């Protein structure tokens, strides 16, 4: 009660990318409030893109300047190599997704209007759209940036929510198939909130165990605090539940197909890429920086989860008849492959570096490919919006060979065929796992890949080897944004598949510093 409280020191320069994104989000809200309707979109788009690009530039500048060895903001946010790499990845992916969102055809004019009502029709006629999408997206991206960099569990929790809450809303904003979209939003929200409650209770228990929510202090406490193992184990398990949910790992994968299907496709693209990247970053940080000393206990669990995730993702994907659901299950399966990378981390510096860099590379590769795939999905349309049912995709290869070819290429990348980015991603992760003695897991992973390949190939078969339906969907002329997204994604998939070295180097450098504690 005496003396002044020491003002915390905050390294604003280090946090600059975050601040830029959040700042732009707030400006976006102001634009929503004060700009006239017809101007909003014209202001939002450059604002959003510039802020993302600016944040990216700042992140790059920091990486060049040298990675700090101490967590910033009083130990709350760790801006280390992996964090910077993940930031860069998320920012690029978000940038690309924004180009997709730009096509406002995807978003409802008035979210509050009851589907089928007069207001709804009016908003459709007016071609009005919720321009709130942009600030919401920026907030979500800000959360995504903060989540993997959070160096204490409280910040992680807040970031988790900042990331998720806008996404819950964005999920419900699809212009077409409103009911489906709203349903997705409700499901995502209820399950997401449920899982974050688990995360929070885990945080509480670990706080009770270690007396701090700081990851480094928790790790220290692992060695020094005794007799409270119940708290520790239950807490760690609950944290794991919360994080694995966000990743969509089995048995917490149930939300993913529903949400991916119902959401507006650009949002799905963002979730499938950005959220996954962020969640893996956070998972790694929490389990390595915070619970690294406990790895003998959580590693077997992750082993099981990884196997289950891969198998569930791969097998259930086969039964899907909806392209977005199929991609969702594919995302689940890829989550499983990525978990192999998490397990592959080990105790020696070299093991960690190779596993981490592999994981980072995989995230980049997968992120781009998946954004591209969803971008293609937005372009194949029926009278009622995007054509999701697989049967509608039959013969697309004849109607629009370029588009179908690109999509097939993305699918091959998902399947991990060499000379695509997906191959090196998988390879990097598998190699790290074998090096760390997780060969059985890799074998299961390989089998799952083979199963997964089946449903990717099936889509290719459908597109190229089947005859087109008479009243098949039309491929819309892509807007410049969408075309750019598909182009960028395809380019990334090729380049990372043929000459991955620069990105691998970058990932390696980023991983070398490991996590600051």
């Amino acid at each position, binding site marked *: 009660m005496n003396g002044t409280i020491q003002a915390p020191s905050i390294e604003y320069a280090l946090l600059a990318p975050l601040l830029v994104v959040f700042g732009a989000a707030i400006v976006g809200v102001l634009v929503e409030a004060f700009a006239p309707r017809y101007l909003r979109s014209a202001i939002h788009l450059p604002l959003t893109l510039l802020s993302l690009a600016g944040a990216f530039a700042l992140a790059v500048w920091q990486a060049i300047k040298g990675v700090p060895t101490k967590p910033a903001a009083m130990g709350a946010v760790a801006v280390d190599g992996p964090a910077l790499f993940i930031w860069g990845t998320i920012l690029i992916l978000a940038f690309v997704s924004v180009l997709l969102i730009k096509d406002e055809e995807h978003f409802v004019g008035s979210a509050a209007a009851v589907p089928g009502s007069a207001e709804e029709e009016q908003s459709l006629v007016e071609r009005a759209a919720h321009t709130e999408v942009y600030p919401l997206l920026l907030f979500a991206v800000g959360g995504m940036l903060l989540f993997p960099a959070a160096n204490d569990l409280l910040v992680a929790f807040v970031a988790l929510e900042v990331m998720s809450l806008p996404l819950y809303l964005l999920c419900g904003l699809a212009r077409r198939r409103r009911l489906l979209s709203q349903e997705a939003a409700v499901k995502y929200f209820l399950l997401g909130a449920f899982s974050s409650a688990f995360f929070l209770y885990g945080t509480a228990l670990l706080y009770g165990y270690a007396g701090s929510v700081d990851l480094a202090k928790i790790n220290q406490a692992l060695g020094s605090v005794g007799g409270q193992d119940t708290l520790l184990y239950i807490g760690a398990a609950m944290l794991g539940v919360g994080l694995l949910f966000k990743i969509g790992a089995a048995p917490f994968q149930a939300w993913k197909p529903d949400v991916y299907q119902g959401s507006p496709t650009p949002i799905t693209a963002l979730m499938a890429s950005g959220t996954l990247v962020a969640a893996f970053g956070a998972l790694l940080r929490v389990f390595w920086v915070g619970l690294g000393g406990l790895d003998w206990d959580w590693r077997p669990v992750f082993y099981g989860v990884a196997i289950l995730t891969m198998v569930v993702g791969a097998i259930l994907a086969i039964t899907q008849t909806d392209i977005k659901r199929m991609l969702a299950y594919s995302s689940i399966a890829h989550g499983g492959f990525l978990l192999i990378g998490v397990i592959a981390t080990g105790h020696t510096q070299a093991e960690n570096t190779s596993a981490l860099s592999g994981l980072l590379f995989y995230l980049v590769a997968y992120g781009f490919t998946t954004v591209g795939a969803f971008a293609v999905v937005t372009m194949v349309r029926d009278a009622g919006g995007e054509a999701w049912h697989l049967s509608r995709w039959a013969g697309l290869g004849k109607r629009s060979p370029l588009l179908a070819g690109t999509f097939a290429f993305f699918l091959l990348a998902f399947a991990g065929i060499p000379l695509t980015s997906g191959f090196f991603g998988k390879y990097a992760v598998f190699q790290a796992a074998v090096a760390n003695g997780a060969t059985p897991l890799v074998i299961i992973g390989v089998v799952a890949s083979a199963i997964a390949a089946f449903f990717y190939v099936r889509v290719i078969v459908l597109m190229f*080897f089947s005859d087109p339906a008479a009243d098949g969907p039309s491929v819309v002329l892509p807007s410049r944004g969408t075309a750019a997204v598909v182009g960028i994604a395809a380019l990334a998939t090729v380049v990372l598949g043929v000459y991955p070295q620069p990105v691998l180097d970058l990932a390696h450098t980023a991983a070398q510093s490991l996590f600051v504690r």
Partner: protein
Amino acid sequence: MPWLSTLMGVSVLGALGVTLVRNDKLAKQFTLVVSLIVLALTVAMAVQFSPNGDKFQFAETYDWIPQFGVHYGVAVDGIALVLILLSAILVPIVVLASWHDAEAGKRSVRTYFSLLLVLEAMMIGVFAATDVFLFYVFFEAMLIPMYFMIGSYGGAQRSYAAVKFLLYSLFGGLLMLVAVIALYTIAGKGTFMFSDLVGTIQDVTTQKWLFLGFFIAFAIKAPLWPFHTWLPDAAAQAPAGAAVLLVGVLDKVGTYGMLRFCLELFPDAAKFFTPLVITLSVIGIVYGAIVAIGQTDMKRLIAYTSVSHFGFIAMGVFAMTTSAGSGATLYMVNHGFSTGALFLIAGFLIYRRGSQFIADYGGVQKVAPILAGTFLVAGLSSLSLPGLSTFVSEFMVLTGTYQRYVVPAVIATVGVILAAIYILWMYQRTMNGPTAESVKSLPDLNAREKWVVAPLVALLLVFGFYPKPLLDVINPAVKDTLSSVSVTDPKPAVPVAQEGQ
């Protein structure tokens, strides 16, 4: 001059060029020209190859992905050289043969020929790769163009066949990937260069596991019994040209891989598994032949003969004698020509009549004598008639195996007899006898088709009487390979070069 890169580069550029050409006819001609250029370059390279020089020649090595220790490393030894030569020869022939294939289904002609050239580049790459990882990349990537060729341009069941082909190969490939990774990790050399990896794995148990990883992939690719079930489907549904490349070249990657990687990288495991492989081979020889007899579909029949032939090749590889090894390598080349000829001529026949079923034919000899005659030559080469090149290789394999494994060699001989049955019976049913109503108006081979068949028949005959140039190239390489497995022949090898004359 970076011969191998040039070969691949020309093919790839050609493939790109084909997609840019707007006119279908021009595209075909362009493809033919490109493939002939590649052939010319390959021959030029082959001429410069000195059989008694370094084991690997025309080597090029660049870092590709240093972080994984992956190089872009290409070079050829005798074995690879002849297989590359085989590919380079078959491609222009296939181009010529497939002149009208793509048009049948109203599908993009340019894409087909573009895929063909891409495939050629990859075939050259896969044989030339001296980096295990690069080999794997080509091994897997090769599937995709072939997949599209089967799936888009094949017969009625094409998509089923294509998917089956792809998934089988992919599955094998992924198992191999695990083995590749494990090899890299266990060797701990930080490089994937083949030459650096040879002899690094000493532990026999490890060798066995890794061997299995590689071997299953190759066995599926080869295809060895019991991994062969995809082949009849794929070969039967593929367009004739693609089938030639599939059976003639792509499947050789399997046996080539066994010879190059399974033996040299895991010598102890190879020795351990030899009985098993030989057994499988022998079963394959006999099984393939018996099943072939029972086929009613010409292309399936030819596919099953290949299963039988691949049994011989695998047996030759694992017999681990110079004679058998050289024979097996030679067999790969000869089989490419002979099966290629069979598929192509059968393809011409099917194109004319519109049916693959043997029962729909009869007495073709009378209406189309040249077609029937060349078909007979090709068929006889398949049953290894002395005087045709396949005889030389089959004989070498059998004698080579006999030196070490008597019983299998004897049983395999049964395959030769069965071969006579299936080929001659098929010939009899289709070409002899009363002319079926439906084939009465079949035209004989036209000029283009004659140009397709002529080189193949010529090659079969030439190498049947004078295989020495090939053997000169192959022998040192095989010896070298076997010596790195530290196997010596049980008794001095018969001077096989004279055997065939």
